[in-house]
């Protein structure tokens, strides 16, 4: 290293330097940091957008699913002022363990709290909150709060005089649960579980069990739809990948056509086709395959949901499959054939394994979309073709039990994440090819 003699003597003995005498390593890190900063500024808008529209709402959803503070604080609708409520009763709950028979002190606290509640006009919200966990109790709060001013000691008798349902231990258990800021009750409810009067977790009565059944139905139908899209999409993707460009372009347009059509238009056209006075049934009757009274019910049930969703989700299976099939050279199958494999063996052992990343990606995509699908089952599902997302929507829009909706959605999210993890373990996420 003859040129090392040119370095100034005060420089560090080891390490290269830039022309102006700074250590090369530091200079390199600095220039790279600049480039990284610039790259970050470019993606910053997207990052902000994702934080705002994705991370934040999901965080809200998760927190909402374990907390509904309407029993603890009252928010004034016009001023936004927050007032703590039910303070007396909550203090009594803190002093007495679960399962304690509510005594005069408890009723007195309740009466005092109801007075404040009536003052704030908050009895409706509180009633709604308790009603989620002890159904049929909302009217108790509105009725009693109206007369709270007139209540006299002994409060136990006075309140029971207004409505003797106040003695229901379930109600007191519900109020005790609602007085803590965080609760797992919405998750319990989402799994058809509830707490009994002693706080033990039990199944809800048979006739009110819906969610587990709906989760199961959603999972089963999603698996079925995923399977159908795979069976239908695989040959199409293969054709797309192997046909001469002229034909494959045309076929590609046909595959993508549904993407360019409104979801509602596609769904309603299935209604036109499938309904009992629809095109398919009428054609079958006209052909004499079925009689006038034997029209097949193909819509407003699970069959309708499956048919319409399979059609709508098909492109999501075809495209990832196509993207892995296109680079598979026909020479592989030829090589297998020349090595002595029948066409079936060549397909099974050589072609199919090479398409696994596409099958995985397509199946994951279709399944995840299917478990969260809402519009199509809502329109063509009828009663027994509804999926869990329809119930989530119901709780968001009709029953306004957002916490339960959030709990259901969180469970769905957890299920999808588990599936994703499983896929990573089995196939490897690096192998995922979405196109």
């Amino acid at each position: 290293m003859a040129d090392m003699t040119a370095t100034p003597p005060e420089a560090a003995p080891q390490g290269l330097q830039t022309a102006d005498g700074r250590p090369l390593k530091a200079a390199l890190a600095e220039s790279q940091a600049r480039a990284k900063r610039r790259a970050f500024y470019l993606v910053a808008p997207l990052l902000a957008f994702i934080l705002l529209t994705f991370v934040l709402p999901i965080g809200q959803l998760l927190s909402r699913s374990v907390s509904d503070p309407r029993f603890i604080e009252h928010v004034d609708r016009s001023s936004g002022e927050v007032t703590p409520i039910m303070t007396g009763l909550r203090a009594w709950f803190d002093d007495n363990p679960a399962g304690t028979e509510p005594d005069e002190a408890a009723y007195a606290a309740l009466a005092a709290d109801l007075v404040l509640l009536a003052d704030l006009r908050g009895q409706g919200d509180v009633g709604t909150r308790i009603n989620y966990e002890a159904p049929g109790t909302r009217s108790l709060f509105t009725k009693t709060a109206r007369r709270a001013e007139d209540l006299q000691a002994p409060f136990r008798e006075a309140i029971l005089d207004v409505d003797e349902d106040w003695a229901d231990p379930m109600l007191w258990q519900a109020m005790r649960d609602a007085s803590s800021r965080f609760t797992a009750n919405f998750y319990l409810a989402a799994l058809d579980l509830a707490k009994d009067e002693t706080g033990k977790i039990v199944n809800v009565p048979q006739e009110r069990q819906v969610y587990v059944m709906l989760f199961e139905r959603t999972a089963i139908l999603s698996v079925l739809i995923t399977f159908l899209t795979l069976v239908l999409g695989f040959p199409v993707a293969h054709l797309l990948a192997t046909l001469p460009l002229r034909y494959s372009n045309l076929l590609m347009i046909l595959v993508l056509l549904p993407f360019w059509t409104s979801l509602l238009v596609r769904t309603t056209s299935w209604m036109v086709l499938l309904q009992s006075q629809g095109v398919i049934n009428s054609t079958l009757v006209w052909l004499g395959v079925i009689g006038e009274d034997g029209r097949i019910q193909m819509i407003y049930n699970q069959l309708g949901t499956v048919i319409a969703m399979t059609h709508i989700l098909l492109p999501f299976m075809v495209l990832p499959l196509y993207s892995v099939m296109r680079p598979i050279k026909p020479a592989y199958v030829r090589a297998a054939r020349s090595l002595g494999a029948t066409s079936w063996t060549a397909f099974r052992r050589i072609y199919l394994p090479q398409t696994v990343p596409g099958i995985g990606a397509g199946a994951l995509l279709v399944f995840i979309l299917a478990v969260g699908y809402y519009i199509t089952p809502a329109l063509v599902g009828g009663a027994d073709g509804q999926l869990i997302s329809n119930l989530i929507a119901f709780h968001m829009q009709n029953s306004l039990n957002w916490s339960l909706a959030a709990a259901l959605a969180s469970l769905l999210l957890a299920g999808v994440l588990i599936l994703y993890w499983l896929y990573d373990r089995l196939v490897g996420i690096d192998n995922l090819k979405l196109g």
Partner: protein
Amino acid sequence: MDVTAPMVEFDRVQKSYDGETLVVKDLNLAMPKGEFLTMLGPSGSGKTTCLMMLAGFETATSGEIRLAGREINHIPPHKRGIGMVFQNYALFPHMTVAENLSFPLEVRGMGKGERETKIKRALGMVQMNSFAGRRPAQLSGGQQQRIALARALVFDPDLVLMDEPLGALDKQLREHMQFEIKHLHESLGITVVYVTHDQSEALTMSDRVAVFNDGRIQQLAPPEDLYERPDNSFVAQFIGENNKLGGKIESVSGDQATVRLPTGELIGATAVNSGAAGSETLVSIRPERVEFRSDRIQPGWHTLEADVLEFIYMGDLFRTRLRVAGHDDFVMKCRNIQGQERLSPGQRIRIGWHPADARALDPV
């Protein structure tokens, strides 16, 4: 199995893809067992189609293809038992090297122990024993080529087809692999049909070369005959470098023809497939058979005046471009031996060649 029958036989085979034009026009070919035959030709000449028909991936439109005396037109590819090496190797990317080699044995229902012995032996043949656990993507082009070769040989086929197997390798590796394939052929006694468009590869490796053009075999001969005694202008042009002098046949006697060049000179040439007197012909002379030093031009040789146009130093050779009898592209190659004279453009020299080296062929 008929022992005396040729290993491979094409009998009046024709092939058309669209029903309008014939890609293979009339193919007749018989190969004895153990031969190394190369199908050589420009792209689109039908050579790969012939190979694919032999492998079973294309069906002959008419005619018969026989393997060891048995007609195989309607036998599917997997029952033909022919080993094949593909242009881009076609190693299965999702399998290791050992699994790739195991595949043809598994589909033949071979037991595990036997498979392992055969895989080991096949990998040994191409010196790749230590690579059994690798995936194809982890191998270099040359290594992949060896594995593809081993895979085509592992199930002991009598016939191995190779479709431009060395096309993707660099020059040095290609030349090395040519010798390895040749050695394998000799030591295993297999029959090989080899397709290439590289004429030097064909000359180096083959027992016989079939030169394809326009859907026909133009000439089927050992490399030496092909180079020194081409049957027609296409073969002369395609194999090696070649000088051609256009002219008219003046007279023919036996296999000797006298040709009048456009400039008026008369030269003698071996008549190969030139027409009768009066017809057009192309006289072909190899550049390295042309001499210009008076001490080397023997009595009885033809001599012509030539102008030096260009002199190129190529290391082992000097390549001189000359104007001869009105042609500007007449090339003469001289070995760079001690004392060889270097010509310079503008010089006027006299060149000559042995009459047997000039061949009067069909005009193109």
